[in-house]
């Protein structure tokens, strides 16, 4: 067989670790992708990618800078639509329905699939308004009392309510970094998502704020499908049940987090985890 073709074949083949990861045997996967590719103009950023992401679990995407993990994350709530030169190919389904179906309401999709970003980005509004905004525009509350209840519950579930209950009218931006990030999580939860995407949610936070967010993620995963992109593989080891290693736009290895971090099968995964290449 032609050497270049052989090389291309092995380059694209994702290794499963172990051969039948336990996390993938628990129930129907929430998100399934088939042959997903992403191009920025002529440059291919993601090569044909197949992955099944489990529900009520945390899946972590790890890999060196520029490997495509954030690009792939943004496909799941179609944030890449906002980038003119970006072209997404292949199929992504959530609960079996294709999210790139032309008839699909993208705004609704982005309520079902919430996102939390690296730099906390509260709206320039009060804490109350930050969380109330989403439910209000989606018509999720029938009255003012209803809306307040949604806000309080979301703040409680994000572990922020006790700290802000006496100053809900204070600006969202008056909170500390860690609190702002929890506010953003409360904001995402308020619209009843099924999936929460997190793009390096703790990069801007100190170790204690990070630990609190990680504890929150552990609690949230009982009710949501969580996908987290992180450049800290130690964080991936701490919080996730499934870990996917990306390199140069390819999904190299995916499987049970415990297996990936104690006994990865691919040499590139092993080198990355051991800090032997960047």
């Amino acid at each position, binding site marked *: 067989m032609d050497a270049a073709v052989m090389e291309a074949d092995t380059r694209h083949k994702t290794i499963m670790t172990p051969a039948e990861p336990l996390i993938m045997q628990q129930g129907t996967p929430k998100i399934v992708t088939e042959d997903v590719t992403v191009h920025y103009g002529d440059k291919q950023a993601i090569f044909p990618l197949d992955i099944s992401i489990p529900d009520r679990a945390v899946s972590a995407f790890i890999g060196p800078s520029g490997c495509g993990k954030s690009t792939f994350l943004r496909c799941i709530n179609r944030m890449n639509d906002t980038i003119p030169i970006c072209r997404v190919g292949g199929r992504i389904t959530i609960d079996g329905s294709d999210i790139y179906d032309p008839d699909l309401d993208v705004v609704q999709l982005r309520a079902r699939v919430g996102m939390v970003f690296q730099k906390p980005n509260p709206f320039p509004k009060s804490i109350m308004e930050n969380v109330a905004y989403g439910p209000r525009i989606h018509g999720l509350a029938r009255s003012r009392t209803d809306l307040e209840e949604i806000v309080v519950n979301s703040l409680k579930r994000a572990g922020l309510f006790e700290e802000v209950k006496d100053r809900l009218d204070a600006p969202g931006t008056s909170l500390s970094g860690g609190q702002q990030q929890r506010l953003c999580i409360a904001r995402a939860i308020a619209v009843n998502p099924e999936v929460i995407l997190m793009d390096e949610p703790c990069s801007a936070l100190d170790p*204690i704020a990070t*630990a*609190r967010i*990680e*504890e929150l993620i*552990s609690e949230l995963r009982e009710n949501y499908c969580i996908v987290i992109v992180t450049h800290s593989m*130690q964080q991936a*080891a*701490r919080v996730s049940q499934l870990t996917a290693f990306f390199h140069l736009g390819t999904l190299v290895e995916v499987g049970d*987090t*415990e297996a990936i*971090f*104690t006994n990865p099968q691919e040499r590139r995964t092993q080198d990355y985890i051991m800090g032997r290449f960047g």
Partner: protein
Amino acid sequence: MTAHIVSAFDEDLGKLRNLIAQMGGLAEDQFGKAIEALSTSDRVKAEHIIAADDKIDALEKEVEENAIKLIAMRQPMAGDLRAIMVAIRISSDLERIGDLAKNIAKRTLAVNEPLPRSVNAGMNRMADLALEQLADVLDAYASLDTQKASDVWHNDSRIDSLYNSVFRELLTYMMEDARTIGMCTHLLFGAKNIERIGDHTTNIAENIHYLVTGATIDGPRPKEDSTSLTPIESRTKK
């Protein structure tokens, strides 16, 4: 100590401690029964003890797997890192204690006759002390009590002294009557096993001290086993 912010970490460490507690309980049980079996020449009891040793071995493996997982997944620091290291070491000591108890049980099958009364008494006294040390050191681990651990570490020399006298007594029997050599050799090994169990409890004590303080116990451990240093007087020498 305050809890970890990420509560699952505390749960994982708790699981490790529970495994050690289970191993400790089994080791105590095995050792106690092994001495009873030897004292009363109970072959049936001895067979049960030999078969049950697998359980301790399986627990040691489980401790090791959990410890490695903890190191990979949690990146433990300082006291947490010491706790995991110490759990691995203690499980290894407990596994050896289990093996030594099994060995004592095997001697019961080999000896197959009642023990001379004073040797029986001597070995029982040794075993009582060793059992007490084992119980104390397991308590000390559970409550992170360095004083209790230190006491075990210091008091092990009492077992050594008893071993000296049992050793001399067995030599005397063998020199007086060659027909007892078979039985006495097995009992020598049995007594040595009890003395080794005592030594392992002092290892555990040292590890507890390291876990709590981050330092090793100062100075050499007091030892009074002089059997390997005392020259034997041969009766044929005139």
